[in-house]
């Protein structure tokens, strides 16, 4: 029973991480319908930026955190302006391939600068965060992850629901021509959505780095794991991304714990295909009805 609970906790925290990573993905998809294959690399860039600022430049943690967020925000702007904007109106496959090319580029660049080793942050979390309940122990890192995750989910929920920019973004996602006709600056919305997505990526990259240490290969593998998560929940649903992340996390840890560790890596994809055959738009995705 203890084993079961430990796996449950591990699964939930892994799932939470996936959900956090998937959030930035859904953000881009919701407002610009771009399937971003460079997601893991954006996470790694955020994590490395934080690493450089904390360990090499020796800035205080809060300042490094804010600077990282600002840096990723502007990186998102730059990527949108120079790479994605020339492709507005091009075929889907070209946009997908562009993000793949971007991913290869960024990965090569990061491997060139930081190498393939594992880097880790200095220990800055307070000891008191560790949570003890009977025999089950949740380490402080996961508690911190949980808190950060809740804060940012709340912030983005409010942003999309109440701020004017958030409402613009939702309107563009819903119907681009109509939003344009009503005077929404669609290109600015695209740029903003990439910037926000890069920011969210940086946060999840940092959290990932705190938990596992940062390794370029590992983080970009998690970037690929985002796909089953978002498809499971429905590509354009934020709530779906969170639930999908939790499901995939639990599925992975339970398969790894009870069946075999080799199956653990593919079980998300098997689940993905089964779900897609039953519900083609994911659990909470927007169903597009087409009839001839």
């Amino acid at each position: 029973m203890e084993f079961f609970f430990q796996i449950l906790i591990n699964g939930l925290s892994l799932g939470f991480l996936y959900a956090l990573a998937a959030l930035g993905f859904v953000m881009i998809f919701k407002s610009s319908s771009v399937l971003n294959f460079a997601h893991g690399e954006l996470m790694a860039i955020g994590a490395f930026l934080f690493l450089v600022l904390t360990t090499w430049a020796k800035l205080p943690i809060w300042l490094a955190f804010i600077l990282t967020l600002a840096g990723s925000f502007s990186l998102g702007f730059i990527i949108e302006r120079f790479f994605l904007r020339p492709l507005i109106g091009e075929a889907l496959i070209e946009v997908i391939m562009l993000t793949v090319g971007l991913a290869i580029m960024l990965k090569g660049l990061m491997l060139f600068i930081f190498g393939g080793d594992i880097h880790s942050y200095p220990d800055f979390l307070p000891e008191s965060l560790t949570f003890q309940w009977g025999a089950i122990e949740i380490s402080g890192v996961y508690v911190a992850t949980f808190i950060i995750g809740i804060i940012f989910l709340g912030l983005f929920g409010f942003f999309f629901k109440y701020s004017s920019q958030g409402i613009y973004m939702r309107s563009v996602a819903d119907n681009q021509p109509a939003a344009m006709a009503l005077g929404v600056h669609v290109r600015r919305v695209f740029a903003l959505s990439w910037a926000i997505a890069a920011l969210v990526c940086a946060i999840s990259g940092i959290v990932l780095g705190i938990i596992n240490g940062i390794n370029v290969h590992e983080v970009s593998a998690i970037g690929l794991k985002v796909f089953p998560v978002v498809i499971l929940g429905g590509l354009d649903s934020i709530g779906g991304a969170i639930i999908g992340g939790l499901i995939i996390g639990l599925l992975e840890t339970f398969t790894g714990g009870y069946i075999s560790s080799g199956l653990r890596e593919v079980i998300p994809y098997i689940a993905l295909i089964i779900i897609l055959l039953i519900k083609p738009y994911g659990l909470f995705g927007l169903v597009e009805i087409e009839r001839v």
Partner: protein
Amino acid sequence: MLNLRFHPCGNFNESYEKELTIFETDFGRLFMIVGLILLFGVVPFISSEYILYILNIIGIYAIAAIGLNLLIGYTGQISLGHGAFFGVGAYAAAILATKAGIPFIIAVPAAGFITALVGMIFGIPSIRLKHLYLTIATLAGQFILEYVFVQWESLTGGAEGISVTTANIFWIDLGSDRNFFYVIFICFVLMAWIAVNLIRTRYGRAFIAIRDNDQAAEGMGIPIFPYKLLSFAISSFYAGFAGALFAYYMMSITPEPFNLWLSIEYIAMIIIGGLGSIPGAVFGSIFIVTLSEVLSYATEILMNLGTSTAAGITIAPLREFIYGLVIVLFIIFEPKGLAEVWRIVRSSFRLWPFSY
């Protein structure tokens, strides 16, 4: 009747047959015959072993890329699992050859048909999925097949893989690069010929109709799902055929090369070459194979230049960077690919003194 005139300066076709012709003038036919004679009569004898090896790899990749272009470029179904299908073909041929003792000449097409079957199974989600959802479903197929390659040890040999004996057709030994060159390029010409002509049949037209607007296609009475499955099957047949040739040529296979990266490379080939163009797939495979050879050659030189190997290790990732950069630049500046560049060059010659 010989049709030895030059190209007209515009589109003056009067019948549908004329629109469908492959060679508008007999000069095109002539150039193709000269090209084939050069390919089979001159190239194998003047190239070194290394050049022959690269040409063979290009030929194998070109066959698979043509198949992928039929699926993505003509039917509009994006597949991220082509590398795995290529692997299925390689494993099928290797298993048929080693476990069942089937000769080369039967094992290769058989591997193609087995892969076509596997491709149809992974094409089934296309009954309800479109666009991004289908893309991700094929991505899942890629990972599942990779898992099967590694885990089904009794059949695939696990991570150690299978070694294949030298191929021979009847009594001719295919061990040397030059003999295999003939096998690969005869297959390549045949497969390219089939693909070019397939596009001109009702099946090809149905594929294009589905790509352009599937709802309209269904409204015109094209049963979409069988045609999508057919397209998956044909494309996987090409991949499996190429994979079987690859297995025989490499003589040993492991799960390693058939990963997501290979699928991405195939898509890069057809995008850089030109979507919806058979010559484009060939241009793309030439470009990608040459690029990766040049890049690894360049890194090797830089590694030797560096005083220690440590410098070389840090330079190696730059290769990936340049590779990604080339893909990105191509998509931004010439989204229609090398086939379009080729068309522009040709038409500027055709219109030469009096371009308008």
